[in-house]
């Protein structure tokens, strides 16, 4: 009975690339994310003006050909600051999510493969971490260990650990029961090899989707911490800090707040669209079928 099913399933699968191009959310989200990433990389090598040099004589300039997006109260070029801010955000996102996946996913796999004490310990620890509001604890961590980019990245990253641990355990549990895993276990394949060769490829899709969402949340969290003065420290610019500085100048220089605010909003929106798109495209239940998960099940 299984053979005809396989045969009919294969022809309905359109290639990933073609389905991706036809998914507007994925295309838009991907384009925004790519733009932010490229800007971030570019900022490492080149910005129109140096961002740590002040030029008070040229402060609060409007948009012009010399200063495309104007200057701030210290005469720094806003475009340059936004570019470096993008680099800062991307760095925080990559490291924080990397930390979450790097620590959380192995823990989740371990919990799925070793039911009992280890599983319980990992899961209850995750519950504990989940019980604290993430941003509040990040504030606490930076308050204790001092404000700064590194500490805020660690604080944000810690909160990604239980997210990925839970997700990994959840999806791994069902795969652990699969016949091919049982077969591998029965033939004596070492657990590490089972985890890497048989389980990881099958849980990669939900992890990737979750990673894009967490990436967006990490950028928001970093902006929040920097806004409170606990994240990136001067003279290094960051979007959150730019927002904070612009706050009292809203009345006469609204662009100083609108530009970093829009950068945060658009980046987070782009990553969310990308995440949603990836979920639609990678979910095996949705391949070639309806877009909505609910209507397909």
């Amino acid at each position: 009975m299984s053979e005809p099913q396989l045969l009919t399933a294969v022809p309905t699968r359109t290639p990933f690339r073609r389905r991706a191009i036809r998914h507007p959310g994925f295309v838009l989200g991907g384009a925004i994310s790519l733009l932010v990433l490229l800007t971030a990389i570019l900022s490492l090598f080149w910005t129109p003006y140096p961002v740590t040099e002040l030029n008070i004589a040229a402060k609060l300039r409007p948009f012009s050909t010399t200063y495309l997006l104007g200057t701030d109260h210290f005469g720094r070029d806003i475009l340059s600051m936004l570019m470096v801010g993008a680099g800062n955000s991307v760095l925080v996102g990559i490291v924080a999510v990397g930390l979450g996946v790097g620590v959380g996913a192995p823990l989740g796999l371990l919990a799925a493969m070793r039911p009992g004490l280890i599983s319980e310990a990992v899961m209850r620890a995750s519950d504990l971490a989940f019980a604290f509001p993430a941003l509040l604890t990040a504030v606490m961590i930076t308050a204790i260990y001092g404000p700064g980019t590194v500490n805020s990245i660690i604080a944000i990253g810690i909160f990604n650990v239980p997210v990925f641990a839970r997700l990994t355990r959840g999806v791994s549990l069902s795969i652990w029961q699969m016949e091919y895993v049982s077969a591998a276990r029965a033939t004596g394949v070492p657990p590490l090899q089972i985890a890497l060769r048989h389980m990881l490829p099958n849980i990669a899709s939900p992890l990737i989707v979750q990673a894009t969402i967490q990436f967006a949340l990490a950028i928001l969290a970093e902006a929040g911490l920097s806004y409170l003065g606990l994240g990136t420290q001067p003279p290094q610019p960051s979007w959150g800090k730019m927002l904070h500085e612009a706050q009292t100048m809203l009345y006469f220089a609204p662009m100083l707040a609108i530009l970093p605010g829009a950068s945060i909003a658009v980046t987070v929106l782009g990553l969310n669209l990308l995440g949603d798109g990836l979920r639609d495209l990678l979910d095996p239940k949705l391949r070639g079928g309806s877009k909505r998960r609910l209507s397909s099940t």
Partner: protein
Amino acid sequence: MKSKLVAAAFLAATFGIAGTAAAKDTLTLGIGLEPPHLDPTAGAAAAIDEVVYANVFEGLTRIGSDGAVLPALASSWTVSDDGLSYRFTLRDGVAFHDGTSFDSADVLFSLNRAMAEDSTNAQKGLFEPIATVAAPDAKTVVITLKRPTGHFLFNLGWGDAVMVAPESTENNKSAPVGTGPFSFKRWAKGAEISLSRNDAYWGEKAKLSSVSFKIMPDAAASAAALMSGDVDVFPNFGAPELLEQFRADPRFEVMVGTTEGETILSMNHANKALSDIRVRRAISHAIDRQAIIDGAMFGSGTPIGSHFAPHHPAYVDLTGMYPHDPAKAKALLAEAGYANGLKLRLTLPPPSYARRGGEVVAAQLAAVGIQTEIIPVEWAQWLERVFKTTDYDLTIVSHTEPFDIGIYARDKYYFNYTSDRFNKVYADLTEAVEPEKRNALIGEAQKILAEDAVNGFLFELAQNGVWRKGIKGLWANRPVQANDVTGAYWE
């Protein structure tokens, strides 16, 4: 929807008419910092005096809006020819807010309390020259000094020298009882302190029936509170960038006055690099005062070259001693052995003059090869780390006490600066009485500080008052840390 709009318009109109018809006799002031408590004789925080000085508490003398010494609870005084004995005649009919009368016994109590071994007074130095205090009768007090003290009458006008009653001192921190034209009414912690008129006041009674001080640390919220009418006056508005907007608004007046706030880049002389005068001079040359004033304060402030207020008659302009000269700064650093750069910590308290000023200073220092690590701290941390334990290299702070050049003569002050030359001049100054000699010594003291480049002297903080049109009788300047509302009224 339409009816709601009409109703709103109607309401606004009636309130508008009501507002103009009845003369307003209440005032709401905005202050940036909440006082830790309300006893000016037991704390250094300027925020205490900003609420209670002259309003709730009075001393034997007081400081007027121009910085002059005026009679307060002492109606008159005579000074002996040797300058050692002060005979004060107290006013009649003065009572504390709790009904107890004020006489020479209260003066004895207040001064002895401030001078006592276990006194918690933050300015014990003010009382140090006093040898004895005597009360020959209920209306007379005689103070004998150890040595002539030129600014003794001024010192008695400080908030730290106000008169308190033995019956009520214990609760002064939470429910202050003084002799002033306003009595304490209520303190909603974190929000507001209200005072109401003292109808039994000995002098001219206040015109306002009540005054409240709203605590608003956030500049953006302060601006919104002014716009919405929740606050009438900000005696010292924290965000100079918003002044232009208030100037353009017909509902407000912007009063730019002077303060006693010398804003300085304090240096810790216990740091090896900063103990070298060449490094300190290099830093002084690296600093561009005007750029700091323009960049951080939006043009508000007056450059200073030493630790002294420019509006004082004895001021000497020393701003030309270290002109902004990055090349010279680099040369001095190289001479001191820091040709390859120097790394220092720059600890910054919350006010915008420090946080924003710090960014400008950091960029200016970076331009001559001094890398700074900016460490933003809250006030409590600043007091602990910088002021008490002197665990810092550089910091930016405004010293707002009047005539406070004497801090450089103090042992173990947080700069860790010691100079026999300065101590000598200051000792002579405290004993000098004739104005010409005093002014010469004050000038000498300023020069020593500038020559030693003790600190980076940046600018004198301006008092940027934003007042709702129609309020009169407030102080535009700030000769002492006070918001004197005793003469305020609405026109």
